[in-house]
């Protein structure tokens, strides 16, 4: 039986190894959530537009992204972006672009369901008032849709935060990598993997509790 000693995990180790990774993971999560929701909303509007020239490209993009493992998407972007722009690109920037593009496909499905959950009478009423399509979406449909979607968005964000650990494939310095390097440098790989798991668990578990509380609130409003 092996004995565990977590005494080596102190403030100095945290600030010199873990903090940098944690900040990158959080930053990647926030940028990919915001970017994914913006791009995803446009994809959802394309899918719901009823115009074949918009519906088919959006549907193809969404279905492709959803049927490929995220690790492969990360590798694809890391391979293709330098080919397209003609110079190498850092793992951090590549990961950020990848996650926005990948998450947009998932957020777009959430937005689409959200828009479809708004009663048809709402957009008819908007049209009857003489609103253009843009006004109708911006002022009537999307505000109601987004309120319904908040808990689902947050659940997706928790999954996204967990998924950021997959940037391991291209060697970006995220939370998991921080623990791994600390483990190597201190000669305590077993302990640092346990600490990594505990850290991810604490963050995701607390966030999911918050989501549940918000869900209860939104449910009353509906």
């Amino acid at each position, binding site marked *: 039986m092996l004995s565990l000693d977590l005494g080596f995990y102190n403030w100095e180790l945290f600030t010199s190894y873990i903090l940098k990774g944690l900040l990158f993971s959080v930053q990647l999560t926030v940028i990919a959530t915001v970017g994914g929701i913006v791009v995803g909303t446009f994809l959802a509007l394309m899918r719901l537009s009823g115009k074949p020239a918009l519906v088919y490209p959006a549907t193809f993009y969404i279905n492709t992204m959803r049927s490929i493992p995220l690790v492969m998407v990360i590798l694809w972007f890391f*391979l293709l972006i330098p080919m397209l722009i003609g110079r190498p690109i850092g793992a951090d920037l590549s990961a950020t672009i990848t996650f926005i593009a990948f998450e947009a496909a998932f957020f777009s499905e959430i937005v689409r369901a959200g828009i479809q959950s708004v009663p048809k009478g709402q957009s008819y009423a908007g049209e009857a008032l003489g609103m253009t399509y843009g006004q109708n979406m911006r002022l009537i449909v999307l505000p109601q849709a987004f309120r319904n979607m908040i808990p689902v968005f947050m659940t997706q964000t928790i999954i996204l935060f*967990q998924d950021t650990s*997959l940037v391991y494939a291209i060697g970006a310095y995220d939370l*998991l990598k921080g623990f791994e390097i600390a483990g190597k440098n201190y000669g305590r790989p077993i302990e640092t*993997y346990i600490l990594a798991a505990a850290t*991810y*668990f604490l963050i995701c*578990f607390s966030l999911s509790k918050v989501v549940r509380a918000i869900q209860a609130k939104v449910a009353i409003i509906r």
Partner: protein
Amino acid sequence: MGIFCKSTLDGEAVDHCFSALLGLGQNADPSYLDWLLKAWGWTLAVAGLGLTIALLLGIIMGTLRTLPNTGGLSRLLVRLSTAWVELFRNIPVLVQVFLWYHVIPAFVLPLKALPSYWLVSIALGFFTSARIAEQVRAGIQSLPSGQRAAATALGLTTAQSYRYVILPMALRIVIPPLTSESMNVIKNSSVAFAVSVPELTLFAMQAQEETSHGVEIYLAVTALYALSAFTVNRVMALIEKRGRVPGFIAASNDSALAH
């Protein structure tokens, strides 16, 4: 796509793309196609074993979470299964793979004898079981409460009412979400690269490095992942069709594809 008929040893074209796989000529160099297909086999092995573990544990845990509050034992089981779900769905799958590969065998020595792809499958299975348990729980709770009441009125024990009344209906309801979870297992099996299981993603990374024919190699790997996930989707649709109870559950495959 000529790269796939080249030897993995010297980069020269081989006589036959399938040479080593078909056993043509004992001295034939293995081609990249041989390597690709072997890697696909590893992906299917990891995902298949992982899915089996996930379905077994997920259905058990999901069922336990819905046990009626009839005494100390059932309360304990509900708590245990709830803790199970929270634990395994709040840790990233890659971290769970590292735990099973690097950490747990240090404490549970017999695990050291297991091949590494088993450890990845266990990690993948436990991670997915938490998500399947949630789907199964939702499926059971979506049944009208009259079903359980009727079973009780007929004098069935709790175990009997689950076996003969609740689970047969609930498991049919959850087939669409289980389909997307099964497809997720195929996709998530790609994390096995991180502990050097020679599956598709690791093949993609290594062959890309060796050959600088990254685009062709990634295309082939991506297509095999999509093909595998699509096959799972069709098999589940078939199971759903075969198992359909006339007059119940107007099942839609769209919902499974959309997840």
